[in-house]
């Protein structure tokens, strides 16, 4: 809420958290009244909630059709009781009891994992009991790969135990919202020490001691990412197992390793198994049907004397396993799968804050969260002279209040900020504080006029920008004279056009753009432009990314705003050019002018790469040295060079060229420093000289400064 009020109303609300604001008219009570609007998040400090929401955007009618078909087939696969079904069940019970008596006993040998690999930066840790536990990062989706050396022999099946852990949600199977899991695929490969690649082991069948309705174990071996096995971890917090029979026994010799993949690629984020254990067996006969102890006990009881729970259990197992209904079951599963696929194809995920029910909000005496004062209801501060217009008091109504036409500050604060972006300084210098402690506007009527115009235009940002850039004030030359400096040192009276060094991200953007290397791609995950080694050395990183994974390919040349932000060790280029560390809301950036920044644009490998790009661009044009110099200069300074500038640069180029002609080793050194892949069929000596010229051009004040 502090951020909301800083950004939209330039209010230093944070000063009223523990006591009445010392300068502005915000009481502490009002602070908590605003707090009450926001006090409905579902965030847990210990994590585990998902920030993504899946939205269905497809044809609702089609979805309904799927749903009814699925329902129809379900009724056929799970028929209601009638005499026919009853008789069938009796027969089945007899057969089952016999099968139980003749069941083979299986010896399981636990696998000791050798290597544990997560595809999404989870840390998989082997435990003393040879189970594997997921710790550290808790990504939405993950695929585990386990490599182990099994005991020698002929393996007939592999068992996966799904284990609970106290660190899991509700002590169940996973660290997701509800502790449930969906295993979309279980794959086994065998790798003989003398073979080059691993061979996939064919799995003929799978059984599990418990499956969630609609998510049977078969989903984990059907080669389909939309279907998977779930053990109802959100309800049952018990260990579970599944066993997978091999189509033919797998021969294990010395040096053979087994590679097991556990894939979680369903549409449910954070349904990733938290703890598991793998075992193998050589037993000749492996049960193809799992009969949990509860079921056995129930079957042993005379049908007339079973309790309701037992009756239900037996019937459920009958429905789920009797061959008579196998076809119906298969059709039902297929329909479900089709529906799931259809839903997934037509859904998108979005990042969202889940709004929970509003909690009761109290004034906190002296800001101490342990000392609650009066309860308060959501309300807005009186100082703005505008009350909430609506009955309902929630985030939406607060947002509408902020942009209400009678709200005097929002428009002014906003146009002031936009003015600051364009002119390098604001009309009200303290753009984050329009309170009594803030500065007065240099041009109050201008501010008012812009604000009124902005509101009238229906908050049209492009219109506002248009108005500003088309103004005579903005289009003034930024040249200054001693007289102007004397009367208006910092250009607060706007006696000249704006002139200021561009922001950190733009330093990168314009450098790459001039070099012809900037990627225009929009969106996607953050990227990792080159960063010197060991920047993260001074950090204590327990989980997740431990090293900077420098991007390659197009991602290496993305816009600066896509750079991955690590607040405890900001990328040095961003730091050198005053990007904020984002620990607090920062409305205005500083604009420093330091030797460290100079070293950055001179020697940072990313900037050298850009110089190489610019050099190539300059070499590609038709013409001689002077033309190239003019072209490069224009690209950087947005104007043609004066005759002095032209001469100076040409002389420098000739000087550098002569040097490199005399020193081929340096040519090689430079080419190798400046290119990821050195270009072929290019005169390297000339290229080297142009690179140094380009490097110099990219460091000009004119290049890095707007205006």
């Amino acid at each position, binding site marked *: 809420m502090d951020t909301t009020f800083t950004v939209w109303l330039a209010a230093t609300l944070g000063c009223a958290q523990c006591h009445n604001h010392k300068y502005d008219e915000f009481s502490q009570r009002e602070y908590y009244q605003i707090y009450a609007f926001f006090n409905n998040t579902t965030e847990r400090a210990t994590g585990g909630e998902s920030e993504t929401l899946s939205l269905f955007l497809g044809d609702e009618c089609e979805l309904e059709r799927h749903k009814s078909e699925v329902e129809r087939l379900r009724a056929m696969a799970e028929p209601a009781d009638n005499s026919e079904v009853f008789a069938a069940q009796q027969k089945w019970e007899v057969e089952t009891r016999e099968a139980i008596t003749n069941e083979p006993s299986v010896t399981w040998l636990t696998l000791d994992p050798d290597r544990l690999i997560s595809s999404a930066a989870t840390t998989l840790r082997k435990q003393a009991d040879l189970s594997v536990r997921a710790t550290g990062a808790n990504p939405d989706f993950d695929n585990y790969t386990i490599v182990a050396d099994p005991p020698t022999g002929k393996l007939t099946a592999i068992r996966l135990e799904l284990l609970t852990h106290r660190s899991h949600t509700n002590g169940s199977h996973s660290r997701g919202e509800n502790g449930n899991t969906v295993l979309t695929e279980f794959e086994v490969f065998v790798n003989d020490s003398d073979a080059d690649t691993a061979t996939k082991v064919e799995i003929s069948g799978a059984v599990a001691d418990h499956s969630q309705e609609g998510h049977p174990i078969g989903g984990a071996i059907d080669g389909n990412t939309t279907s998977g096995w779930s053990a109802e971890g959100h309800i049952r917090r018990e260990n579970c197992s599944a066993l997978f029979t091999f189509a033919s026994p797998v021969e294990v010799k010395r040096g053979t390793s087994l590679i097991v993949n556990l894939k979680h690629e369903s549409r449910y984020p954070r349904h990733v198994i938290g703890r598991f254990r793998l075992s193998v067996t050589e037993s000749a006969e492996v049960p193809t049907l799992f009969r949990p102890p509860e079921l056995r006990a129930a079957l042993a009881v005379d049908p007339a004397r079973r309790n309701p729970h037992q009756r239900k259990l037996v019937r459920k197992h009958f429905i789920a396993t009797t061959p008579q209904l196998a076809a119906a079951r298969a059709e039902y599963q297929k329909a479900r799968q089709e529906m799931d696929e259809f839903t997934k194809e037509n859904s998108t995920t979005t990042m969202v804050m889940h709004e929970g029910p509003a909690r009761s909000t109290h004034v906190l005496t002296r800001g101490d969260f342990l000392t609650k004062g009066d309860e308060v209801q959501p309300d807005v501060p009186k100082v703005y002279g505008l009350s909430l217009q609506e009955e309902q008091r929630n985030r939406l109504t607060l947002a509408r209040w902020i942009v209400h036409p009678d709200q005097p500050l929002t428009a002014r604060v906003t146009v002031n900020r936009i003015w600051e972006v364009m002119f390098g300084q604001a009309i009200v210098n303290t753009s984050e504080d329009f309170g009594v402690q803030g500065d007065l506007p240099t041009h109050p009527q201008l501010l008012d006029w812009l604000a009124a115009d902005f509101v009238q235009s229906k908050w049209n940002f492009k219109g506002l920008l248009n108005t500003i850039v088309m103004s005579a004030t903005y289009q003034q030359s930024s*040249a200054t004279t001693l007289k102007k400096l004397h009367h208006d040192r910092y250009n607060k009276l706007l006696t000249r056009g704006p002139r200021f060094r561009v922001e950190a991200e733009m330093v990168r953007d314009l450098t790459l753009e001039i070099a012809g290397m900037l990627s225009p791609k929009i969106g996607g995950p953050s990227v990792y432009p080159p960063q010197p080694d060991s920047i993260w*050395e001074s950090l204590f990183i327990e989980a997740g990314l431990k090293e900077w994974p420098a991007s390659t390919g197009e991602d290496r040349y993305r816009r600066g705003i896509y750079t991955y932000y690590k607040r405890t060790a900001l990328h040095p280029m961003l730091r050198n050019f005053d990007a904020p560390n984002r620990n607090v809301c920062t409305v205005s950036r500083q604009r420093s002018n330091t030797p*460290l920044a*100079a070293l950055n644009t001179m*020697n*940072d490998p990313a900037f050298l790469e850009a110089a190489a790009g610019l050099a190539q661009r300059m070499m590609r044009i038709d013409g001689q040295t002077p033309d190239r110099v003019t072209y490069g200069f224009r690209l950087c300074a947005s104007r043609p060079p004066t005759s002095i500038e032209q001469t100076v*640069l040409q002389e420098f180029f000739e000087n550098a060229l002569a040097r490199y002609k005399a020193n081929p080793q340096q040519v090689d050194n430079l080419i190798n420093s400046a290119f990821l892949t050195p270009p072929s069929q290019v005169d390297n000596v000339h290229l080297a000289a142009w690179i140094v010229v380009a490097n110099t051009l990219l460091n000009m004040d004119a290049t890095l400064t707007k205006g």
Partner: protein
Amino acid sequence: MHNQCEIVTKLRRREFLGRAGFNVGAIALSSMLARNLCADPVAATRKPLAPRRPHFAPRAKSVIFLNMVGAPPQLDMFDYKTKLKQLHNQIVPESLTKGERFAFINGDAKLLGPLFEFKQYGQAGMWMSSVVGHYMPEIADDICMIHGVHTEQFNHSPAALLLFTGFPRSGRPSMGAWVTYGLGNEAQDLPGFVVMATGRGGRCGVECYGPGFLPTVYQGVQFRSHGEPVLFLNNPSGIDSKLRRDALDTLRSLNQQEYDLLGDPEIQTRISAYEMAYRMQTSVPDLIDISSEPKHIHELYGTEPGQRRFGNNCLLARRLVERGVRFVQLNHGEWDAHGGSRVNIPQTIPRLCGETMQGAAALVKDLKQRGMLDDTLVIWGSEFGRTPMLQGKLGDQVGRDHHKAFTIWMAGGGVKRGFIHGGTDELGYKHLEGSLDVYDLQATVLHLLGLDHERLTYKFQGRQYRLTDVHGKVVRDILG
């Protein structure tokens, strides 16, 4: 349609003030005071690092902070407790731990007596154990040993942030940044605030030497002891220094042309920034190259040229301070001896002392013999201490948990020599009355530099901030 004029005349400043009932004079006064000490940000960039006079006569001109990252076990090194020795391996009295929270152990842990032999040294009878080696006893008469320093934080990052920035969350300027902001930089071609690290990593990353919301010129610049000392200092391979000089001359001419056309004073600043960068390309390697120091100096510090060593960095610290650098921070880790095979007291602490004590003592001796000790404040400390109770298993991998009371020592810069201040109770558990807390330490350090911790402020987010936040008092007992 609303009358736009009406809208925009709402809440004119006068109305605001009228309703608030404030005295305009009071506001003007406060903003005048503010302008006094925290420069207008635009002007600050003019010459932000120009040396400034402190509030009153200083004792110290520079600070060297030896930051033992992870927290050394003070009860095994400097704070000798006979009672603790007697009660070794017994359960800690409940009266002490009732209601307390710990980082890892529970309240019913066993006490661990000091693991090394203690003896007294110097005129003050300073206790030091054998693990700190024979170098520390040699400077017992030069240092001020401070026991019972206390903090409220018992996890590394918040505690380190509290120690260095005055607040347990990130975002605020570090001690070195405040000092450089207050006093500027006397070094010609070097940053005013330099940081170096050896051993295993730190805990709060760059925040422990960052500028926070102060202008970024005040940030600690990390001198790396391997690879380039300063990031991007070296020219790329293929551009030698002569060619770079020619390039800079060209750049200067171009920028000068721009200046002649446009007259923007910032262009001149940029020209000088590039010149300074060029000078740093020679001055920094010159500084880093310790091979020119005489043999006896190398022997004193126990340096290993070409390697990443704390002793090397101590020598570098002296060289930095000689050249006028204001604040040097040397990080060395990892002292976090919870026990176990990785970091424990019996095996790891002797190694870490071996890596650091010689250099630390040498620094004090070297400054003294050069007559620099009086105006250089050396601080040896960490973010917190370690419990009198053991963690892990008794044996050769035993450790201790995090503890809010700890020991530091200071030398030079106006502190008393051969003096012991503060203390802890007989088990080394709670600090005694009159001991320093972290804010007091900050206030005292600033005081020694001639700065009033309550007056060295900067306006941010609508109010004045200072290193000590709203706490801290100067502890005069340790001032010489």
